């Protein structure tokens, strides 16, 4: 233990003095907290209008365009458009499609919607089989992909993508291309090399990175994916890899390493994991249930100003999973420990994690049930609410639509 502390102090010293390494020693339970007012310059709560038509479950994915909050709700399988004040504008559901992802394509001023055809269902084994040939056009009929034109949303102008079989694994828009990943190994495969990350220009593969052995790497018997995180620059994606604690950057012509987290032994995958002779996907699942404290992946990466937000994929409550790195001080914060205070009326902050980020703001949301719960719990403190939220509490109920939380970070914490 003492050794770790010594190493920790040494590293803090080292990183502070030089910035010459990208390795960061990070002990999740020791990440600090702060009152909301020290981190955020501004916190706005925007209730989303609740009408019979606009009622939805939970924000599965949020996209903030110049004019709208665009929400995909998996419960109803609809896409909802609200204006920036929370007023309901319209909703859209592609017929026969179960939505899997929505993405903003700024250059086209369109929303990319992709999903699977409702009429078909596949076993994981069949998807594995299909992914051996991801651009095979005959698979495209099992999917549904289109651009929804945002210049006038009322027109519902849809441009379908034909023969787009890559939609099977929800690719990410990258420049004018698609970044996609589907990693799996099988002992029946020929002893050859696969790549974790691939970039396609239409049906043409233009880039492959991170090779792995498709027969022998037993920890890939359960299919995995590289996770991509769009940035404000369409020519730049951040990404993380399974069973790896690094954050990478993908640009038009290079892959670069931004940070590598060094986690405490109890959270780090042991070397033995990578050579463990897993027999099947079930075997791997069993290993994962038995080793709950291990971190499997880094997820939900957002970089805003000089702050890097991320979460760890391990068996802890959501409150203990989400973190923020202040790149100017190399200090780690646990977003679950950021307290509500009088500046935000003691209302929920980042319970649902970060759901979208643009140049200026972070976006999250809270269910009406938890908004009202917070209100009840903090009656004694006489919180002051902004007019919109005051009206929401007066007229709304616990079963109303969720509330969008818009947060502006301070330039300097404190």
């Amino acid at each position, binding site marked *: *233990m*003492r050794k770790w*502390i010594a190493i920790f102090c040494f590293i803090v010293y080292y990183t502070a003095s030089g910035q010459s390494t990208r390795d960061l020693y990070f002990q*999740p*339970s*020791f990440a*600090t*907290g*702060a*009152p909301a007012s*020290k981190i955020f310059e501004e916190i706005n709560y925007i209730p989303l209008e609740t009408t019979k038509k606009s*009622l*939805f*479950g*939970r924000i599965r994915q949020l996209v903030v365009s110049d004019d709208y909050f665009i929400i995909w709700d998996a*419960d*109803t399988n609809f896409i909802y458009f609200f204006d920036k004040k929370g007023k309901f504008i319209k909703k859209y559901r592609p017929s026969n499609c179960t939505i899997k992802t929505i993405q903003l394509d700024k250059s086209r001023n369109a929303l990319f919607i992709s999903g699977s055809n*409702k*009429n*078909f*269902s*596949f*076993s*994981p*084994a*069949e998807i594995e089989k299909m992914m051996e040939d991801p651009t095979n056009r005959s698979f495209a009929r*099992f999917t549904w992909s289109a651009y929804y034109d945002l210049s006038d949303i009322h027109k519902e102008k849809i441009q379908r993508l034909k023969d787009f079989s890559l939609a099977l694994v929800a690719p990410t828009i990258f420049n004018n291309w698609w970044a996609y990943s589907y990693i799996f190994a099988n002992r029946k495969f020929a002893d050859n090399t696969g790549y974790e990350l691939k970039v396609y220009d239409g049906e043409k593969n233009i880039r492959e990175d991170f090779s792995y052995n498709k027969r022998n790497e037993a920890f890939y018997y359960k299919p995995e994916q590289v996770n991509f995180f769009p940035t404000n620059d369409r020519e730049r994606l951040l990404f993380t890899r399974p069973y790896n604690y690094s954050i990478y950057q993908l640009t038009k012509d290079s892959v670069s390493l931004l940070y590598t987290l060094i986690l405490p032994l*109890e959270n780090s995958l042991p070397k033995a994991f990578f050579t463990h002779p897993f027999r099947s*996907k*079930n075997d791997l*699942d*069993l290993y994962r*249930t*038995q080793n*709950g*404290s291990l971190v499997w992946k880094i997820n939900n990466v957002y970089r805003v100003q000089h702050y890097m937000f991320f979460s760890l994929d391990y*068996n*802890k*409550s*959501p*409150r*203990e999973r989400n973190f923020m790195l202040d790149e100017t001080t190399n200090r780690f914060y646990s977003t*679950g*420990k*950021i*307290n*509500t205070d009088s500046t935000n009326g*003691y209302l929920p902050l980042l*319970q649902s994690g970060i759901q979208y980020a643009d140049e200026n703001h972070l976006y999250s949301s809270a*269910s*009406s*049930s*938890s908004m009202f*719960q917070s209100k009840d*719990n*903090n009656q004694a403190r006489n919180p002051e609410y902004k007019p919109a939220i005051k009206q929401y509490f007066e007229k709304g109920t616990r*079963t109303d639509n*969720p509330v969008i939380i818009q947060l502006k970070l301070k330039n300097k914490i404190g």
Partner: protein
Amino acid sequence: MMRILIAVIIVIIPSLLFAQRDTTRYNKGSVTGIVKDSADDYALQSVTITLYKKSDSTLINYHITGEDGTFTFSDIPFFTPVHINFSFTGYNLLSKTITLDTLTPNYNFKTLFLSKAQGLMDEVVVKAVVPITMNGDTLEINPAAFKLDSNAVVEDMLRRVPGVTMWGDGTITVNGRTVNNVYVDGKPFFGNDPTLATQNLPKNAIEKIQVYRETDYTKDNIDDNPADSLLTMNIRLREDKKFGYFGKAGAGIGTDKRYEADASGLAYNKKLRGGIAASLNNINKTAGLQEMFQQGTYRNYNPSNRYVANFGSAGVNKVLFIGGNMQYDFSENNNSRFSNQLRANYDFRSTNNYVTSTTDSRNSVTDRVLLQDSEQETHSTNNNHSGGISYNKRDQDKDFSVNASINSSENTRASNNFSTRAVEGGSVLSENSSRSSSQSKNNGVNFSTSFRNKDDDERNLKGFGINYNLSYNNSESQSNTITDFISYEDESQNKHFNRLNNNESSGFSNNLGMNYNALKRLLFGNFSLWNINMVLNNNVSVTRSDANIKVSDYDSLTGAYLRNDSLTHNNRVTRIEDRPSLRLSKNFSKRLSDRFNRYINITANMQGQFLSEKNESSFDYRNMDRSFKFFTPSASVSYNYDRFNRYNIEMSLSGNKASSIPSVDQLRPIIDTSVNAYNISLGNANLQPSVTNALNFGFNYRRQQSAKKTDYNFDISASVSDVNDAIVDSSFYDRLSGRRTTYLINMDGRRVYNAGFNAGTSFKMKNNKILQFNYSVSLSNTTSPNFVDAIYTVTKANNINNNLSVFYTLGDLGTVMVSQGVNTNSSTQSGGSLKSLRAVNYITQGNLNINPVKDLTISNTFNYVTNNTTGQSSALWNAFATYRFLKTKQAEVKLSAMDILKQNKNISTSANINNLSTTVSNGLQQFFMVTLSYYPRRFGGGRQVRGEGRREGGEGRQGGGFERRGQGGGGNFGGRGIRNR
């Protein structure tokens, strides 16, 4: 009156006893404040705050801070210096001492800053541990956070956990949901009864308790019904407590030559769990192995007094029981999804029973009611062995099991019966006396095996299941019956028999079932077929039963038994049956996160039944070869609505059609008038199969608001079945002898209605007191057309049972239970002058357990039954005083006073279509008994010997490990609204 008085006394006594405890309330104050991180000024969540009396360090209260870091303690005594400790993993401990008085009754710390423990982390002593955390979807209860007596068991702790309700009947609910499985280290602990774990395992042996929802992996889960998921409570033992033993051994002796001796012992380690039990008594205590285990738990709370002398059972029994079982797990895997287990069990039971009884029954026939009075005396012995072995291996996608069992029994029985029959208000018609003695032997073996292939994806083509069952049994019996029937009105009907019966029979059955779950996938490939699921099922069975009946009658001329050719015969029934079916189902689910979740499932099952039965007999008239084809479809709709943090509703409606064929004994019976002189059945060779259409409905409501102190739930069930071509009686009563002769006929219009309502509510009050109410009512109505003396009559038999019970726990001080039941049986006849019958029983029960001083429990049970028809009543009052001694409370002395009022009688009433009878039988009489028991127990290794103090101390240190610190540091109290105080 007596009933009400006693009920009132039972309720009032405890409240008087404990009333004075609240008088100090007004001399108490409160403390509030907020805890923050000293460096970064943010509120700390999950800080454990403990309050001790400064004088003797007794724990007054504790609190875990929520998201906002605030805390409030009330009820702090005045003029008492109090230590307040603030501890949190990774931070330096902070202590404050305050004394409240009338001038400063409320103290506000405002903001308290905890500083991070820098550097010397090894030496940080973490004194308190978070009691409840959410770890992902798992709720974790940490025993170390609950300071209890060193002899406390798991149950003592669970009763203090917010959100957990222990019901009077042993059910456990967590936030309103019933716990379906209680496991220890991921495996059932000596069967399915949670009390074996919760009332035996010491709190100190537990590392943590996890509560989580899991899919029921023993089912195919084709429709993904949320009602199929199970709430599981897993008790994880501390690493050093993964082996141990516990049990109970006791013997008692009483007045009236009564005695009892019981012993049970259970032991476990990581892989093997086994137990044995034995019992010998002459006080009608009969219990199976599992019940013996349950009754031998080391509980010190809520004794059920169930396993005591049974005054309710007929006669006086001497019982010897020896049994044992074991379970071996080939893997130590702590996951209920996986199983690789061998089980074995063996039971031996010997009973020696002596019963005398008198029965009064009333038969309603044309113009009048026939009364039958009978007296019976029976002496029987029964020796029974049974044993079995089974193996089960289950993993995520395969489930294989194989079972084999045997049983063997020997019985002897001797009885005398004398009965008379008379017209109500008139003269005696006839009398019948019979004496019989019999011996029989039964042997049986059973073998079954099953295999299921699920694969990880049910849409895979390989989803199927197969099961096979084989059983064989044979029995031999000999009996001798001497019967005298005397008719007072017609001497020609008088009969005398002295008969020997020698029967041999055997049965052999084979059953093969198969189901294929991937039919849709096979036929339609990836097409989702509008999400309709298809399952193909087939069941084939072949059964054969043989009987060899030899009857001979005593011939007084020759002085020998001569073969009776009209009754002696052989019979063989061979039955081949096939039931193919196709099951279609579809789900409609709708969900709005944080609001509701609705699930509807519609299932239709199209089933055919092909049946052929061959009867071969030495009597030609009984040789038959029949075959049938039936269509027996069924359909069901189930509905599940979950209102987030409010309530859950489950509803189901199902209907089915089933056919049954008349047996050979209904078609062409062998008529024997000697055995039962009052009832002769002639059957009917032209009977047709009957068809039953049934409809069932169920509704269940459960409140799910963990923040509330009140829990309630209710359910309603109803069913109706209508039988076409029902096989009913057409009976004739001989006016002279009162004898009933029955023909069987097919008739439409037989109908059965059943309805039930059940409601329960539980209030959690201060100081661990719980008040629970349960009310249940069940109604049943059978409408049956039949003929009596050629008069068409519709008989309606009604049963209404009402029961209200109140259960009250006074924390650790005792429990009170009072219940009142009213059971009404009635039957009405529509035809002509047939009489209607009605009987009402009132049953009052009370149960009071109190611990006036530590280790002493005084229990009273009270039972009062009155019956309006016979005017009979029976009162039974038993009292027990139990004292636990030795430092570890492992020894117990118990004084029992049974039937203090000396008014016990065994009364039972039965009603059917046109008959109502009341039987009073002998039973135990008043006695007093003293019983000594010892509870041997040991958990974990040799450290135990050094005393409890050390173990208690060990708890504090538990939180200090590195790994533990990580967990303790982040309790999520917001997740499900579980908050301590």
